[in-house]
């Protein structure tokens, strides 16, 4: 858009230019202070509720009931609330169910999405953009619309209320994200490396296995983790598709109205814990994914 021609207009050592430069620097420094302040406020906005809920989960039940409340350093640390929550009927089963569904989802979506992501990143085939668009459309369409008919269908097929059918549903939901993340990962591995491998006598499969895959592995792992987190979090479909084999979110959803604060807070903590841990590993890949979509 603009080419740099300023050096032609003004000699660089002129006092005019130096003054401008100083002003810019000062302004930039002042701006930086404001930016840090803003960043700090946003961090507080995000962390304060998280910290509060966590401190409620790790204290005594008396402290949960008390008012006005203080947070962790001032209230007794205790695993009382968490143990109380785990002792409630169905909770441990729900945790297991959630874990199983999330792991099946992780495996399925990675196995299915990895080849597709590779194809989208490497090959130009008819309908490539259509596939990309279609995958995005799946991400955007309401889970609500899918859950009810799937529940009816699963009932008819006799696989209603099974962890597998829920995992299938979750896989369909995570698939778009997985494909896009994996595509962005493969796209970031230079094609030349793969070609170089083939020049030196490796077969296409060998060069994929020994060169591309090791480079792409962290990214693929990130997409798997993302699938895991999505499945762990999903509430609506889990509530609709399960009855006896409730996952943790579905269990919490139906228990919510008739449960104590301690139960809710500890449950909320278990729901959010994986995302706090896993977002750390996958945050950078999220940007790649969206730059794939918006470009």
């Amino acid at each position, binding site marked *: 858009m603009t080419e740099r021609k300023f050096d032609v207009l003004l000699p660089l050592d002129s006092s005019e230019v130096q003054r401008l430069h100083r002003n810019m620097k000062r302004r930039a420094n002042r701006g930086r202070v404001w930016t840090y302040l803003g960043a700090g406020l946003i*961090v507080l906005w995000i962390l304060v509720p*998280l910290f509060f809920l966590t401190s409620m989960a790790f204290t005594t039940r008396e402290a949960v009931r008390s008012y006005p409340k203080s947070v962790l350093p001032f209230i007794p640390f205790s695993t009382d609330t968490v143990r109380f929550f785990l002792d409630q009927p169905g909770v441990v089963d729900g945790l297991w169910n959630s874990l199983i569904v999330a792991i099946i989802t992780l495996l399925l979506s990675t196995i299915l999405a990895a080849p597709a992501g590779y*194809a989208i990143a490497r090959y130009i085939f008819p309908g490539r953009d259509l596939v990309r668009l279609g995958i995005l459309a799946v991400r955007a369409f309401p889970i*609500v*619309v899918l859950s009810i008919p799937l529940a009816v269908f699963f009932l008819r097929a006799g696989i209603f209320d099974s962890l597998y059918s829920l995992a299938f549903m979750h896989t369909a939901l995570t698939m778009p994200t997985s494909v896009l993340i994996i595509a962005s990962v493969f796209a970031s591995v230079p094609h030349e490396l793969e070609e170089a491998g083939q020049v030196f006598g490796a077969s296409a499969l060998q060069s994929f296995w020994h060169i591309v895959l090791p480079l792409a592995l962290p990214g693929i792992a990130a997409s798997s983790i993302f699938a895991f987190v999505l499945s762990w979090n999903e509430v609506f479909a889990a509530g609709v598709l399960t009855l006896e084999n409730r996952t943790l979110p579905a269990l919490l959803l139906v228990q919510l109205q008739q449960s104590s604060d301690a139960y809710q807070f500890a449950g909320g903590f278990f729901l*959010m814990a994986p*995302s706090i841990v896993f977002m750390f590993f996958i945050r950078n890949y999220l*940007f790649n994914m969206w*730059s794939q979509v*918006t470009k």
Partner: protein
Amino acid sequence: MLVAPVLIFLGFFFAYPMYEGLRLSIWDDEAVLPLREGPSLKDSESGRLSQGVTVEVLGRQGNLLTDADATDLLTETWFRVAVTQPDGTTVDGWAPESRIRVREEGPDGTPLSGTVRPKLGEPDDPRTTLRDGPGEGGTEVAFVEPRAPAAIVEVAILEVWFNVRGTDPGESAQGWAPSRFIQVFGDEVTGRIDRGSAGEFTTEFIKKMFNDRFFDPAWRTTLLLLVLIIPAQFALALLMSLVIHARLKFNSWFLYVFTIPMGMSDLAVGTLFFSVFTGNGLLNSVLEGLGIIDSPHVFLSSQTRNWIILAIVVAEIWRSTSIVMVILVSGLQAIPDENLEAAELFGASYWQRVRYVMLPLLRPSVQVALILRTILALQVFAVVIALGGGDTVTVLTNETFRQYADFRNNNVAAAYALFVMVLSLASAFFYLRTVRTDTEIER
């Protein structure tokens, strides 16, 4: 092809339910009952009656049942019996279960033998008729005396068919239909079509949804939330992405904290903000600590609808701003640094650079983010349940869930889901038309 598995999977778990959802909401599987010329599926159709029509029952007949799992059907059982007459001769034929008194059963409950029941009262002919086949349609082969011993040779279960006549608005029809579709009243000569066996297009479920007493508050609240959340959220997301774009020290940590909410479930965020807004929660504790209030303020109760909505708005902004930020940051990363440096050299202030350089170049990202966020905001669910219980403040997805889980009405639930989808498509279309990308404007 490498993409094939994904497409097949999505076809099965995405396209199929989509189609099925559409069908559930506008197609009544049990709308009409085809009637037949005779009591058999092989007979040709003589007419159709809609569900709920009152009918005259003109006759009944049993048909040999082929499938075994007929537990909830109206059936008749017939025995093939060998009856020893008083004169010593044996006759063979079929009689209904009601005419034979079973005296001996096998270990598995199959009747083995019995006697012919006497008729009650003083009938003209006390003898029981045997026929050459199960059902009243068989020809008579013999008449046997009451109390004669009978060996039960064979058992047949018949499905009862009714010959009915009824008037569907305007058109009358008569014919045979299996009993499972017809409810016969106590007088045995009238009844109604209980359910049909053939589907028909219907707007009944959609009408039911529009007339549902929760429909109005649900869509109003959903749209209100949309209007309250999206602008505030985009402003905050822009701030967050500018912070990330400034590449401060510890940028990676800021990024981590900013994206935490993205990985959290709406239910978790619901409980999170329940802990903030509840009577003895964080907000009241802080307000009292600052001396602003003397006793805890009740935010979440059925009398404080506006507070609940505010709590939902805050929770949703907290939860879903991260995804907008991620989209905006990846858009910002695509803007060449040279553009911003040039603007700076020409003396543009920071806000001028944001306003005249970044924002116009961010249009495609903003468009994607708007579409995605609007569609996801139409689906807000667990946050509403966690903060408001789902009665005081209700949204469209909550009504879908209520219809499905509480009222067991899949069709109306599907109609609600369809409504959500129509709104989603309309909003996506709206943004595609109004938020034009710069390529269309400048070049």
